[in-house]
């Protein structure tokens, strides 16, 4: 009997980003159940060159025992390549930033995301099924023309973070947000909320924004905004930080804040939960689903309401303990074991897995 093959296609493969983690873990899972699995990428970031092949080097001859998984999140020539392949295909959707959330700042990028959505939509007629990493993403897929997307948790494989000791922080609270500096992440709303917070609750509070400056124009605007509000000393944009530095930051911060207008999942929220860092987040897109009951979901973007929610969280140890207890449930839901079970279960809809696996 010939070996079953399940190969993954990723537009851009990086060691540390969410899709990279998910793809590598998916490969390990497939190999562990005896399935031949390779990763094919268009762009390979440093450190991944030995772990993947360029998609132009994919088997020229089709095979009956092969399933192709497209890890879709951005515009890529791979979509056209895959649409011409005769093998059955599954789309694993990680969400595309809606163009309207970035158009004012990054017109070119908004055009690209717009085309990416169109590209992914066109693939709907050519796939045997689709997997979404959140119910929010599943809903998005439906609007792109996909029938019955299956929801399976993503693999979040960061090293275990030592849980931080809980503490009240009425003075000198440090807020943390992790995510690339891009308009859909709305870091400027966090700056506004910090200004409101410092005005009333804690004039020594600070905000650390971790993440690459994906939009230099927007990053400069955030810096200028903080300067004009007179809080530039309290806001720091660090750029990307290595894993061990991130663990320190999660441990030394007092609050994880998120005001994103759009997130397909938001891995850093789960990482904050792992570090027992309380979460206050604006309830847009997939965020309420990722947070569950383990954090404070703010219902609107008013900086004053956000600041107040932060204050309540930072000064109410009972509430924080509730969040920590709920975090255990969320962390279980997004554990590697649960992701493995759900993804194998999802794949069993499309390919015959070895006996006893599901």
């Amino acid at each position, binding site marked *: 009997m010939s070996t079953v093959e399940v190969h993954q296609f990723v537009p851009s493969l990086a060691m540390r980003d969410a899709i990279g983690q998910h793809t590598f873990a998916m490969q390990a899972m497939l190999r562990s159940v005896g399935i031949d699995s390779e990763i094919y990428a268009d762009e390979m970031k440093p450190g991944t060159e030995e772990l993947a092949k360029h998609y132009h080097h994919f088997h020229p001859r089709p095979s009956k025992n092969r399933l192709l998984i497209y890890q879709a999140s951005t515009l890529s020539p791979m979509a056209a390549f895959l649409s011409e392949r005769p093998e059955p295909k599954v789309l694993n959707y990680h969400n595309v930033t809606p163009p309207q959330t970035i158009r*004012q700042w990054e017109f070119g990028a908004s055009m690209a995301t717009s085309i990416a959505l169109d590209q992914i939509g066109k693939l709907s007629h050519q796939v045997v099924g689709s997997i979404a990493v959140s119910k929010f993403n599943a809903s998005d897929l439906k609007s792109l023309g996909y029938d019955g997307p299956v929801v399976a948790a993503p693999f979040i494989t960061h090293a275990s973070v030592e849980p931080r000791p809980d503490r009240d922080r009425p003075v000198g609270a440090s807020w943390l947000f992790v995510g690339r500096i891009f308009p859909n992440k709305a870091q400027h709303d966090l700056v506004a909320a910090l200004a*409101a917070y410092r005005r009333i609750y804690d004039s020594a509070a600070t905000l650390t924004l971790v993440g690459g400056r994906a939009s230099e124009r927007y990053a400069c605007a955030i810096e200028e905004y903080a300067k004009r509000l007179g809080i530039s000393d309290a806001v720091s944009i660090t750029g990307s930080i290595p894993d061990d530095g991130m663990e320190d930051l999660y441990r030394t911060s007092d609050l994880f804040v998120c005001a994103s207008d759009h997130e397909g999942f938001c891995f850093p929220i789960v990482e904050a939960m792992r570090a027992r860092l309380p979460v206050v987040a604006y309830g847009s897109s997939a965020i309420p*689903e990722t947070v569950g009951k383990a954090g404070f979901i703010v219902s609107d973007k008013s900086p004053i309401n956000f600041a107040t929610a932060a204050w309540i969280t930072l000064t109410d140890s009972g509430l924080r303990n509730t969040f920590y207890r709920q975090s255990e449930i969320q962390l279980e839901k997004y554990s590697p074991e649960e992701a493995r079970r759900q993804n194998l279960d999802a794949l069993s809809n499309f390919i015959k897995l070895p006996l006893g696996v599901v």
Partner: protein
Amino acid sequence: MNESIPAEKAGGPVESSSAGPDGVQDQAAITPSRHADMVGLQQRVVAEVERRRKAGAFPPAFEKMLRATFEKLIPQGGGTSRDDFQSLFRSTDRSAFMDIDVPLASRKPGVSLAKKAIRKLMAWYLNYLLQQITNFTANLMQLLAALDRRVRIVEDQVAGMNRVATIDDLKLFTSSATVDFALDVAKRSGGRTLVGNCGSSDILSRLARTGANCYGSDTNVKELEAAQRAGMEIRWSPLKEEVDNVRPKSLQTVVLQGSFELSPVSDILEVLKGASDALMYGGTIVAICHEPGTVPQDADSRVAIDLSAGRFLHRETWLNLFERVGGFSAEATSANVENSEFVIVAHKLQSKVPSGDSGA
């Protein structure tokens, strides 16, 4: 996995699960009891903000400053204003010229010479292509400039049709009968109520006095400060942004009043869509409107009246707008003879599409 965790101090009543029209469960329905916890927490935020506002901690001018400061930093070119158009036009014009003289420099020996030779050999071909592309882009830029001139003429004409008035300019005030009616609907609906453009009537103050969970939004700092002094929960926020920024399905009632009805129809439609998203199923929009004939100058044709900003809409147009938003059962009250007001009451219908989502 046990999802039925006992409600903590922030807990509240559990809402029923519901599915969106696409068959996928909406945010409130993903984990039904989570949303209920958030209700209690939101109430704590509201109470704390209210307390702080009363103490003068968050004056409306501060909220306005926070927003206005950032708005000044948003780049031009992404919006639809004249400045945005000019900025985009200039940058397109600059990039319309293409340079055939490819740079030849190289740090590797001999490569520069090779590049020079290739450029010379290819020149006849590239020149031919470039000439056609340049002709095309030059014509395209001229076409854009001509279009701009034509759009400007239309804009000027439309501006001439606009009255660009506010309710206050027209010296129109909401009658007590209409306020009573709106209050009655809001009170019966229960839940959290947003009074949009709250500065122009006493609906918010009267609603707040009944102990209702309500707040108002407006952009008139003076009126907001007065409302704040009177102990009301208010927010400096343009109506469209307010309904867009509220978490989906978190309001039970939205009262729309004031100059809102004098906006361009497309803006009204956007506000209605935002309000629709902000409402829970079964929630209500109460729109306080005036008959087009309220102002004697409105003797134009119905089309001109309803399609240009700054004029009142016929009730048929209002009902049509709600139909376009979808998912509402809307009706208009008969006009109040005293000042030609009428009220549109639109109930958001419960989604009937069952969830078709399949979790792994």
